[in-house]
């Protein structure tokens, strides 16, 4: 066992209203520069739809991610290393700017320079690449709210494999939003595809970054990523990608996209995993088993053997404590309501999604059932083959069972809490069937419905090695924030954690406390 820590995100799709605030704030922060006009580290897609870049999920076409060779070993889908070196002069699998979108701005000057007249002046679109006039035909957000879906969405690769005919009328269509960022994969194929070794995974927190000084513009990372989340800056000739806002994560702050999310649907936390088990798990023969295989790579932070192995591996004590309080680990592994996006790409993605119950519940209600009664909902969830199969194609390589169970758990939380709060009778057989205790239901309710800031983001700050020493000096000089009544004064530690929240780790380092106030769980 070689424990490593990874900063991981979960998004609750039920709450996404498709407002694109995350895309805008991310863009303002990271890609508002020449050369990155077309780049969205965070984009929000309407599903069903082609996505951005168009049909990126179709790996027959784009050859992103990993596949298994005849002997069952992991291979980059794009081919061998030698092949890459020989085709370096022209990358056969690279999307063009049109697959993303030809970036454009408007000729605003015309508004003030147009000669006086009776007609109001109008402005036309100008390509940001050439300055010429341009007629936009596609974009990162072209299909927003199913725009054009009746003609186009049928080419969604997730629908292509379904036998059912998917209805595309506005009345009966099944719609939800899918915000996407880099997955900061455990087995990143972008890193493996870079001939220069410019992309790397940080060993402390698992964030995948591009070293701008080592990138030589061979552009194989762009095609190597199955999620198409590495972008080529056409001005600098270098690759760029989502940084998981590492300067903020290092300071213990949530990413920009999370911080500004109006739906408060994002969760950030630590997951401990066994680095030695990753390759074997990614090579699981049946793609439908990849979800379970990835779960098996995660280590239970409550396990004392894991805790001591983690600390022996140099993971700071406060990180282990944070892993125990991690909302992300709870949603993924304890409650099993979050699922990975396209595990069949075999990169072991680390941004997981809670599938949307509401569109399913709406369809249930439309079919005449009481959406609040989990048992009725269960029956119809199963009857609604299309949404389930579609979600399964996104999240579990087509295996419907985990999606159905996740949706059922969400339905149980809704009906149990509704009944409790309204003082209604309710049957518990659904919860029992899913092996959900009352504590589980309440914990999910706390995470998903109450969703307080400090429950959604449990991010231990990075260790600048002097932090402990500085803290010690502060304590000696009596300048501590931890004394009675001082702002750092926190009640007892979080109940799930149990262990010390601040203190000395095995390496003798002193760590800052994680939370300054009691969590919602204490009440």
């Amino acid at each position, binding site marked *: 066992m070689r424990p490593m820590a990874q900063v991981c995100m979960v998004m609750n799709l039920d709450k996404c209203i498709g407002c694109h605030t995350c895309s805008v704030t991310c863009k303002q922060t990271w890609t508002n520069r020449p050369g990155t006009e077309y780049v969205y580290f965070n984009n929000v897609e309407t599903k069903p739809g082609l996505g951005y870049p168009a049909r990126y999920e179709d790996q027959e076409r784009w050859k992103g991610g990993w596949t298994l060779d005849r002997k069952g070993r992991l291979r980059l889908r794009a081919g061998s290393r030698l092949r890459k070196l020989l085709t370096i002069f022209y990358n056969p699998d690279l999307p063009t700017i049109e697959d993303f979108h030809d970036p454009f701005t408007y000729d605003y000057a015309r508004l003030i320079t147009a000669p006086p007249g009776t007609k109001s002046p109008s402005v036309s679109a100008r*390509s940001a*690449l050439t300055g010429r006039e341009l007629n936009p035909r596609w974009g990162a957000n072209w299909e927003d709210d199913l725009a054009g879906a009746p003609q186009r969405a049928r080419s969604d690769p997730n629908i292509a494999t379904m036998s059912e005919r998917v209805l595309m009328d506005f009345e009966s269509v099944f719609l939800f939003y899918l915000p996407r960022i880099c997955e900061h994969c455990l087995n990143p194929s972008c890193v493996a595809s870079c001939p220069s070794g410019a992309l*790397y995974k940080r060993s402390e927190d698992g964030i995948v970054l591009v070293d*701008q000084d080592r990138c030589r513009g061979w*552009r194989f990372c762009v095609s190597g990523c199955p999620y198409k989340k590495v972008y080529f800056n*056409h001005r*600098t*000739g270098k690759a760029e990608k989502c940084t998981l806002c590492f300067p903020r994560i290092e300071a213990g702050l949530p990413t920009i996209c999370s911080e500004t999310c109006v739906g408060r649907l994002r969760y950030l936390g630590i997951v401990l995993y066994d680095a030695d088990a990753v390759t074997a798990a990614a090579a699981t023969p049946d793609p439908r088993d990849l979800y379970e295989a990835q779960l098996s790579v995660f280590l239970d932070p409550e396990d004392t053997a894991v805790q001591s192995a983690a600390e022996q591996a140099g993971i700071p004590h406060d990180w282990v404590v944070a892993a125990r309080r991690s909302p992300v680990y709870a949603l993924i592994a304890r409650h099993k309501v979050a699922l990975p996006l396209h595990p069949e790409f075999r990169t072991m993605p680390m941004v997981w999604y809670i599938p949307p119950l509401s569109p399913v519940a709406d369809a249930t209600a439309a079919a005449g059932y009481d959406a609040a009664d989990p048992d009725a909902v269960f029956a119809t969830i199963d009857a609604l083959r299309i949404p389930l199969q579609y979600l399964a194609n996104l999240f579990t390589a087509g295996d419907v069972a985990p999606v159905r169970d996740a949706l059922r758990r969400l339905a149980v939380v809704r009906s149990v809490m509704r009944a409790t709060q309204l003082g209604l009778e309710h049957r518990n057989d659904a919860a029992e069937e899913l092996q959900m205790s009352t504590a589980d239901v309440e914990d999910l309710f706390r995470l998903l419905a109450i969703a307080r800031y400090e429950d959604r983001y449990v991010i231990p700050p990075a260790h600048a090695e002097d932090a402990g020493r500085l803290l010690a000096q502060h304590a000696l000089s009596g300048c501590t924030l931890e004394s009675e009544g001082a702002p750092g004064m926190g009640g007892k530690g979080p109940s799930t954690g149990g262990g010390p929240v601040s203190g000395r780790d095995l390496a003798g380092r002193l760590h800052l406390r994680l939370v300054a106030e009691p969590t919602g769980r204490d009440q």
Partner: protein
Amino acid sequence: MNGLRGINGFQLFWWVILPYLALATFVIGHVWRYRYDQFGWTSRSTQLQEQRLLKWGSPVFHYGTFAAIAGHVIGILIPERWTHDIGIPENAYRWFSASAGTLAAVLVIGGVAVLAARRLFVARVRATTSAVDWVALILLAIVIVLGIAETVGVGLLGGGYDYRQSVSLWFRGLFAGNPDATAIAHAPLIYQVHATAAWAVIAVWPFSRLVHAWSYPVWYLWRPFVVYRSRVASRPNEPGTSGRRWRRIGVRY
């Protein structure tokens, strides 16, 4: 220094001093750029903007260029005496160099024609080309077109010209510290312009996108797939420079 006997000051400057200046610029320029402008060191791929022409132009050009470079190594750096001594008759050598050279020439000229058309007429590609890239590309085009005129026009169709008795002697002499400037000064004009433009390419090389050629990532063949790196605490950059100590090197972006 018997190679310098009987030449005038201009010839000395043009065929001896300029080449050495170009070589010095090449070496010092590379050291300097490598140290101060890692960020600008890239192939500056334009595949994102245009693919259909690049698909043929770029591989054909590059493979042709490698063949042409190999041909130069054989033709210029290896003395005629050596090939003679191992028993390759002069005729056979001529025939081989003309036909292999022609093949390389066809590849290079075909590739460069496609790439040049792309640069000139595809607006998106044109917009990304910096001034120093224009200089490098135009010089490269001159070298290529004249080189082909020599190989095909003179070597294959024309009467033939034994550059190994003149141009090669001068070129090797530069590296031996004993350049035979008379030899090149009396070569046909087309060889003189070709050689001059080639030195100019050498001189602008370190400042253009051509530096990408030195970064061919052979070690990719045996390094582990997934690269891990530790976070290193570092001093924050000077505001607004993103750590580049000399902002004006290389390409503006």
